[in-house]
């Protein structure tokens, strides 16, 4: 599915924690081998990240701990403040939002209705005080749904779609297995029919068979709904399976970007080569 404009156009995206000084960028990064500026002590979590995400596409962001990949997701999801750069989100109807400077009210609206986020740890993404159905209802209510039956029907539909037995709609999330909690997160993320789905290490820590089912589910959803997705992972297998294009990040910078199979079979950057060679 191709359109003429990207859903997300990111240029020079940066996030620095701390006072920041003019040398921060030059003294950190891949060449310097560190995120911490030796002069002012600021942590350069992300610097000069640029990419486009097209409608219906899955972009993988790969890297190890400290690479800045989760920070990028947090910045896009408006959970953190951009220090510098631009990230333009384009809605289906053509409205554009500059995420770097958006106000709180617009940020809430985007998070509630246009974005879906799935965390590695379900405790970050689920409300454990309400039922599974209540978790999905919460998202629908945020986007203005006021019919009880419509909410109920959609919740049942989403549970079925994510292969959670619909009979468990009124159970508490803490009664679910880890894999099922992840699937509930996915159901909740999809509730308002978002245009952008952000997946942060969603299968890390899960059993292999559970992982497989969730990855299959993500692919099916992508096929059916054509949602654009950013998939953050450190797992080469996940990125090979899901993403058409991939960014490789290290020390807050993008060191390589390309088609996923090219990154894995013909890596250009020394770090990418090392990563690919390290795969089990």
């Amino acid at each position: 599915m191709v359109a003429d404009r990207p859903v997300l156009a990111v240029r020079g995206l940066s996030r620095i924690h701390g006072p920041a000084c003019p040398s921060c960028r030059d003294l950190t990064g891949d060449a310097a081998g560190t995120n911490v500026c030796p002069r002012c002590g600021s942590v350069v979590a992300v610097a000069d990240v640029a990419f486009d995400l097209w409608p219906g596409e899955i972009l993988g962001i790969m890297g190890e701990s400290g690479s800045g990949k989760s920070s990028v997701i947090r910045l896009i999801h408006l959970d953190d403040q951009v220090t510098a750069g631009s990230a333009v989100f384009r809605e289906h109807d053509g409205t554009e939002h500059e995420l770097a400077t958006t106000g709180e009210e617009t940020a809430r609206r985007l998070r509630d209705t246009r974005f879906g986020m799935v965390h590695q740890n379900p405790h970050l993404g689920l409300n454990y005080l309400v039922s599974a159905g209540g978790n999905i209802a919460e998202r629908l209510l945020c986007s203005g749904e006021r019919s009880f039956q419509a909410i109920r029907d959609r919740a049942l539909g989403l549970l079925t779609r994510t292969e959670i037995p619909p009979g468990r709609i009124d159970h508490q999330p803490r009664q679910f297995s880890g894999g099922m909690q992840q699937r509930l997160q996915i159901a909740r993320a999809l509730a308002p029919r978002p245009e952008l789905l952000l997946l942060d290490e969603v299968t890390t820590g899960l059993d292999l068979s559970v992982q497989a089912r969730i990855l299959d589910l993500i692919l099916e959803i992508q096929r059916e709904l054509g949602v654009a997705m950013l998939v953050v992972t450190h797992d080469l297998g996940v990125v090979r399976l899901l993403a058409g294009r991939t960014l490789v990040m290290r020390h807050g910078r993008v060191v390589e970007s390309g088609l996923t199979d090219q990154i894995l079979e013909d890596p250009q950057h020394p770090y990418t080569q090392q990563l690919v060679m390290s795969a089990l």
Partner: protein
Amino acid sequence: MSETCTEPSRTTSSPSASLETRHSKLETPAPVLTVAGLAKTFTLHHQNKSIPSVAGAGFTVSAGRLTALIGPSGAGKSSVLKCIYRTYLPQTGSMVLHGADGDLDLATCSEHAALRVRAREIAYVTQFLHCLPRQGTVDVVAAPLVALGSTRDAARAAAEERLRELDLPARLWDVPPATFSGGERQRVNLARGLVHRPRLLMLDEPTASLDRRSADLVVAAIHAAKAAGVAILAIFHDPDLVAALADDVVQLTRPEVPCAA
């Protein structure tokens, strides 16, 4: 480093080949892909090594014609295909895909454009079937059409048609191909490559390790694709197949390994 474009008249051992080539010579074949000066070297940073893979290749692939790449092992035949498909990044050269909307140099186009070309224009069939695990055969074959926006039912119908042409029994259609024999998997592979009617089909030893019957089915499918106007770039391990199917033959030689990295 030398490339030779040999005229098919040299391989007149197969009468059908000359009939076919005479037939294709009568129409002006439209060029689909023009490769020029293609070279690829692998740089392994950690071992401090530079390994040349393709030492300069140039040729044209036209609609309804099959161009065969021949040469010794290590000459970079598979690498050329991978460069065109953007799995490898070439160091120099151009790979221009000609289309109704204009020309696109695959060597320099954006990733997004490359993905688009893969989805719509080019199919790449190797001797290994790489597919999503846990997906039934029909869905594996239908996947390229679904990705282009076709409904699942229409895509499955087209997929079943392709599988029927390649004589894959219906009882296997909903089974994931992981447990199939080599011949069966290759037929699934080729069916998937043809289902979305690409303009350019690239084949990397499609009949290697196949039994006679499967190989014949594959050859028949290739003939049909040619007749339908698909441009084909192929590597065959069997010179008889080259003789039988190729309209143009391109010879590649092993690149020289530099003395120092």
